[in-house]
């Protein structure tokens, strides 16, 4: 029974060493020492065949028990020491973290304020069924003026207001120019003859100008709705919807008489000023410098002129329509409080990175 004693003493020895162990590494060592390939228990088990046959079964059982006990003890202790170690590590980590230090950020660039505005405008109008299009920037006079009911001698058609391209004029469509407004897209849209129309045309436009409120290249967004029974009421509703969506539910809209060649009646669209909230005076009693008597001009609109419908192959007796044309930069500056529209075309990164 020599082996039995040795097994029991090995068990006691192993278990007490395991209980004393403090680290997972010590336990790994003990595992090797006792139950590893050349561990002491493994060695003892090799003695088993030498045991007389009548005792072998009993000893065998004992040996298995000892192995199980040691392995379980190892496993429990390993779990405990590992937990302990993790707790210690977390504690150190906690001491090392300065939550006020800046984070490691992924790269983040900037979209241009004009793009931001265009995306927002597109989304707002697509909600009420307008489809975005884009028509030529370099255009024939016919689409930019003639078909839009501009008289031959209209000032907008002269060299001081519109950029012309040094190319031969078209036999039918006249001189080549940089379109001064997205309204040329009205003609192209109607000529497609897909009724009814709910167009949102956003494109680059060009005028021969440069001052605080004008740049030579800018963007416009043009709506055009042509259908049976379209009235001023429909235009008012669409403008109200856009203004409340883009500028906020507290902003009011009004339309005033104005004059454009391609609409009749024509309107100027105003919204209440965001700085003085439509009062025309600031809380300190000072006159508001941003607006005119509480109102800001936003852009033009009107009912499509019957000559424009006719020129575009649309029957004015059956269809009517409205159109509006606003500057993208204009609405973006009004919304963001930029005072000089030329700022928006600054290519200084220190400016662009604020958007």
């Amino acid at each position, binding site marked *: 029974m020599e082996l039995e004693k040795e097994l029991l003493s090995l068990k006691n020895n192993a278990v007490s060493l395991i209980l004393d162990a403090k680290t997972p590494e010590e336990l790994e060592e003990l595992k090797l020492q006792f139950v590893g390939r050349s561990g002491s228990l493994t060695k003892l088990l090799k003695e088993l065949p030498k045991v007389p046959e009548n005792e072998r079964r009993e000893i065998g059982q004992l040996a298995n028990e000892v192995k199980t006990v040691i392995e379980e003890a190892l496993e429990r202790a390993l779990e405990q020491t590992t937990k302990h170690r993790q707790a210690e590590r977390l504690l150190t980590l906690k001491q090392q973290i300065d939550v006020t230090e800046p984070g490691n950020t*992924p*790269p*983040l*660039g*900037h*979209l*241009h304020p*004009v*793009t931001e505005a265009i*995306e927002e405008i597109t989304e707002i109008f697509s909600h009420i*069924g307008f*489809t*975005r299009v*884009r028509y030529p*920037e*370099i*255009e*024939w006079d016919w689409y930019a003026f003639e078909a839009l009911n501009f008289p031959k001698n209209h*000032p907008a058609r*002269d*060299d*001081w207001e519109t*950029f012309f*391209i*040094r*190319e031969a004029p078209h036999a039918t469509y006249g001189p080549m120019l*940089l379109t001064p407004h997205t309204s040329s897209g009205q003609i192209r849209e109607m000529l497609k003859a897909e009724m*009814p129309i*709910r167009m949102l045309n956003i494109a*680059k436009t*060009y005028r021969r100008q440069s001052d605080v409120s004008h740049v*030579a*290249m800018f963007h416009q967004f043009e709506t055009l709705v042509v*259908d049976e*029974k*379209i*009235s*001023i*009421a*429909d235009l*008012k*509703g*669409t403008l109200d919807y856009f203004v409340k969506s883009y500028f906020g539910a507290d902003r009011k809209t*009004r339309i*005033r*008489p*104005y*004059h454009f060649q391609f609409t*009749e*009646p024509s*309107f100027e669209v105003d919204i209440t000023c965001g700085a003085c909230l439509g009062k025309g005076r600031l809380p300190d009693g000072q006159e508001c410098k941003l607006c*005119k*008597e509480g109102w800001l001009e936003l852009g033009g609109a009107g*009912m499509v*002129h019957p000559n424009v419908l006719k020129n575009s192959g649309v029957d004015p007796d059956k269809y009517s329509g409205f159109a509006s044309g606003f500057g993208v930069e204009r609405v973006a500056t009004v919304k963001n409080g930029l005072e000089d529209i030329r700022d928006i*075309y600054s*290519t200084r*990164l220190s400016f*662009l*990175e604020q958007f």
Partner: protein
Amino acid sequence: MNIQILDSWLKEYLKTEAPAKKIAEALSLTSVSVERVEKWKNDHLYDIEITTNRPDLASVVGLAREAGAVLAEFDIKAEFIPPKLPLPQKPSGQKVPLTIINDSSLVNRITAVVLDVSVRKSPALIQDRLEATGIRSLNNIIDITNYVMRTIGHPTHVFDYDRLGGTSLKIRESKRGETIITLDGKQHSLPGGDIVAENENDEIVDLIGIMGLANSVVTDETKRIVFFIDNNEPHHIRKTSMALGIRTEAAQLNEKQIDPELALEALLYGISLYLEFADGKVVSDIIDIYPNQPKTKTVSVSEKQVQATIGAPVSLSEAAEILRRLGFPVGVSGEVLRAEVPSFRSADIGIPEDLIEEIARVYGYHNIPSRLPQATTLRAYNPEDSIFYWEKRAKEMLKYWGFTEVYTYSMVPEEIYEGRIESALALANPLSSDMAYMRRTLVPSLLAVMRENKQREDMRLFEIANIYEKQTGDLPRHLLRLGGLMAAPQINFQDGKGIIEQLARDFGIRQLQFVPLSAGGIGASVILEEQNCGNIEVFSDSVLDFELDFELLAKHATTRKAYQKVSKYPPIVEDIALKVPEDTSYEAIVSVIQRQSPLIRHLSLLDRYGDTRTFHLEYQSDEKNLTTEEVTAIREKIFQSLRSQLHIFPKK
């Protein structure tokens, strides 16, 4: 154009108790935009924007008439009091001669008279009103011309009769190169085709409708004047005024086609002022040459049309009442209204829609309901087919990779135009040589932005915009391009290529190829299904740029995903290091490796160092767990093929 008018002046012709603020608001909503009302001494000053179609409102009398018509809509009592225009007494004694020879293709109407006057300061009332309206007071003779213009709305002119060089004036078109000295002392060379008046000695004495000349201007010594009112053909005025850069108020009014009926009113009103404030005495006949009297026209509109356009139940009698107040004689029969257009609106009103505008604005746009257009036919919308969808997606992607978007001008200077300048699309009338040509590429503009920000070492820029390609006999092609620029102390080709590859991957494009630039430059052309899709160019160690055909990318982009079933069996993963001869391309190695077994499911370049390339491989089967023996066999096959085909050896 904007004009400023004092409230007290307006109320000389408008009888009402309404305060200035109220009048301004009513006019803004229904007629003409009053941009501001300011306190002016004990008075109020209106600042009014006049639209080009309403020159009749650029006057105190015109505004009073309009205000009288619209204030009633706001339940405000108001009555228009027309100016009193007495006919002057016939001159007693010897009449002073004056002959005017007109050209009716240039001037519609001329009214004129000769007066004896004394030059002195204007009375305070005229001085104050002119000052408030933004016109400098000079002396009574000149001030009265301006005062009449502002009151009646027709520009007027005055000559010193004794400096005219004779007793007759002839209207003619100028010849190119004729020189004049305007009354401000500036010399101008005329472009030709300008309306001028010349005297008996063939000397030009007036630049008609725009500005008087130094040789005939009134001085302190003036004793006799010609008070002269010319109603001109507007396009001539516009052309001359713009070409010479003389933008006087007279020019701005005359180019808008002023009602010729006002020419006589202005004359009579002016005479009454000269009598009162300049010891004036009429010493000639009153001349009135009126070859182009406009015909009266009548416009009709039906109730149905009025209501359909306005979207509110405006009755025909309501409409007729509005038009009458605006000065239109109106007749109603059944469902149709017929309105006669008054002379002061004849240039502006011609079709039913014009009448509807008059009715609607006075009815009040604020009284019209607001509603969205009714739902219309459903049309399918698939984002995949919309270039705008892909544009937005690309822009956002680039933003999150640290790119900043710029907008640069489509017009570029010659220095950064790419291509032969002789065949460029050039502006005929550029504002400056900095914006003279329509660009053919985006990258030069991005490089210019980089130079502008030269204090930055690190930057990533992009722009999506059209470039323009000339076509004979048609509009140029507008090609949407994505341009990018990357600058950093150390940057290489792969940094740029990676951006394009990743963008293509997100677009669902798998067939992008990169081939070395054929002509000059370091970099590659990007090929998409055998079409050129742009290029990447290494500018220096620290700058690279790319420009891509965005329409082609969007055309091949898809929202559909190429999905493959994930194998149930785990992959076996390994890295292999290879010693690679200098001129062997990555692509050649990959194609040899990939050919060796369908079980190679993934292959990527892990590291590049000297002549060593480390590849990461994954072997995987859909049917079973692979054994070490099977993987070893494939690996041996790979090494053998690399050795025999490319002289590449595994690194020890």
